[in-house]
């Protein structure tokens, strides 16, 4: 299939792996901040092609993993109300809140539906004027334009029964938070290609300068990913700290104007709490005042953030790259994909879930 097979070519991947092996003379630690890339690493076994000493750390790039538990609880609460159709992307259904997940809410009689697009939720609202349709607007800059479009369409259609529960986060402030942490050990970043396809990469330039860290815009197919790692390692070896683009077929320095304009019309930058990290200033999106009528929190009550704590789950440290999944005492024993203790074990994009398989590969293959 075009635009796929050529980026999964074994010979090209091997050549990139060899170039990497030649380039890396010292151990380096690189973080990707994208669940899709974490998934690709595991799916294609890309970590196995990297030189020894090169460590990949999976940052807070999985939207499911960083959504605060209080928002999941709010979603479950709204989904349980009579007359509500609660719509969500599929993988949010399994994320445990403090009183069960959305799957459980469905089993308890809630009308919970997995949709493929927020526009499907708008269609539902139009088709069921007697019901309240709520969409769980989760994600990074990638899902924001479509979610913004859904709100715009709902307004244009004059829908009074559509609202969104917003949990939108932004990548650059998370990178900033990780780099500013006292325990940071990340030396280079792979910026998520599809986030940059919407936003461009200008925002990353001050980060690279300020923290003297290379940031490489990277794609998702095996050769895309290896190319991104190679450019990043090359910068580290040469002592450079720039923003480079290894995903030129999808990303330019400038943003995607219409997409960004749509996001800016509907949303404004706001503080956000990240699961496992805490509140980060200006790290998310909230509905603008003009669109407050579509805010599920206004309709069903505001989410109250509580400082809950767990002694066992290390997912916060995993998300920050301080800990690797296998460092957690619960990993693979009390915490598995069937019974996740933390979000990073829930989503297929989560680092712990990804490493759960990797662990089996290591132990049984030994």
């Amino acid at each position, binding site marked *: 299939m075009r635009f796929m097979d050529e980026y999964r070519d074994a010979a090209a991947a091997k050549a990139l792996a060899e170039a990497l092996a030649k380039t890396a003379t010292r151990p380096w630690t690189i973080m990707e901040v994208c669940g899709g890339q974490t998934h690709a690493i595991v799916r294609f076994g890309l970590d196995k092609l990297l030189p020894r000493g090169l460590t990949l750390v999976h940052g807070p790039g999985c939207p499911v993993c960083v959504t605060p538990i209080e928002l999941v609880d709010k979603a479950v609460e709204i989904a349980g109300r009579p007359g509500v159709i609660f719509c969500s992307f599929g993988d949010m259904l399994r994320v445990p809140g403090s009183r069960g997940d959305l799957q459980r809410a469905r089993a308890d009689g809630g009308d919970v539906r997995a949709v493929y697009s927020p526009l499907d939720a708008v269609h539902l609202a139009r088709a069921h004027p007697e019901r309240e349709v709520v969409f769980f607007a989760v994600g990074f800059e990638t899902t924001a334009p479509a979610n913004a479009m859904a709100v715009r369409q709902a307004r244009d259609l004059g829908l009074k029964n559509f609202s969104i529960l917003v949990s939108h986060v932004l990548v650059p402030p998370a990178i900033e938070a990780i780099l500013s942490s006292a325990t940071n050990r990340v030396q280079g970043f792979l910026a998520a290609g599809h986030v940059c396809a919407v936003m461009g990469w200008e925002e990353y330039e001050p980060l690279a300068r300020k923290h003297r860290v290379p940031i490489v815009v990277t794609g998702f197919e095996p050769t895309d990913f290896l190319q991104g790692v190679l450019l990043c390692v090359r910068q580290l070896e040469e002592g450079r700290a720039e923003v480079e683009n290894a995903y030129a077929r999808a990303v330019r320095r400038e943003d995607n104007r219409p997409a960004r304009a749509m996001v800016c019309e509907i949303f404004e930058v706001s503080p956000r709490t990240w699961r496992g990290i805490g509140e980060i200033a200006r790290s998310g999106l909230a509905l603008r005042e003009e669109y407050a009528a579509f805010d599920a929190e206004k309709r069903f009550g505001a989410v109250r953030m509580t400082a809950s704590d767990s002694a066992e789950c290390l997912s916060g440290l995993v998300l920050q790259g301080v800990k690797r999944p296998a460092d957690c005492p619960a990993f693979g024993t009390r915490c598995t994909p*069937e019974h996740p203790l933390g979000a990073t074990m829930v989503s297929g994009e989560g680092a712990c879930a990804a490493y759960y398989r990797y662990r089996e590969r290591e132990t049984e293959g030994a």
Partner: protein
Amino acid sequence: MSVRGEVAFESACPMPDLNPPRVLMAHGGGGRMAQRLLDEIFLPAFDNPLLAARLDGAVGELGGARIAFTTDSYVVRPIFFPGGDIGSLAVNGTVNDLAMCGARPAWMSAGFLIEEGFPIADLRRVADSMRRAADAAGVRLVTGDTKVVDAGKGDGLYLATSGVGEVVARAPLGPAEAREGDAILLSGDVGRHGMAIMSAREGFAFETDLQSDCAPLAAPALDLLASGVAVRCLRDLTRGGLATVLVEISEGARREFAIEETAVPVIAPVRAACEMLGLDPWYVANEGRFVAFVPEAEAARALEILRRHEVSRDACRIGAVGAAAAKGRVVARGAIGVRRILDRLSGEQLPRIC
């Protein structure tokens, strides 16, 4: 490195549902949660040797004849989908389970659970489709039952079917018969049924002309058995897809299987739809595909036999049975040469966000 104290932020993680008190959709996905229902509720409740064999159907002797007996129920939305409907699905599913037990399908039953208000014309259409599927597979629908449930308490129409057939396989079939060096054959491309169903559901974001692979498999399976090829195991791929079936067989065989990822055919529309939705075609449902385990030396002849039948004309060799492994293991060698372990899904395959 110390864990606590040095860290700026601490995580907050909830205790999960360790034992959900109600059945979730995930229990029906053919993955680990479904397995758990089997292991913890049904197998202990009905414990007996025929059930313990855990095949697609029960195989045993009754009045001097060796027979296979199988049952299944069908809930599919929409009821009519590209390439089939709930009726042809039910007949073919039952026929295929019997064929995978090495049996010639003979009789089947059908229970109809109908929701009040279901159109009679649709019911007639389903019955016609069942008759055509039964004729094509050489099976007769000899008994049945009808129940009507209140409007709103069913999804239009559910079917429950059982089937009986005479076992024609001369040697026992099943995962335990797989031996080191056996070839693993696949009867055609995977993922069509699941993606055809998805694309037919309302609200789906894109259109395709994808058809379900729903078809009877008795002819190629019985032909293979009659040919004298020493077939070790036959298994049709259903809701958990190719990957789940391979994992199940490897666990039963207690052996490692090596699969060549590039050898498994997936047609372009299925690949494209799966890529878009973040689904893995190896875990997507099929209704007209099976795997066959045969000795390597007879693999070429087996493929030639399978390819004579339209339904399995793209049959191919996808891997081999390896050494003993206590818990079984399936290793796929990927497009770029890296190996990965295939695992069961936990519950349903859920589309990813981005």
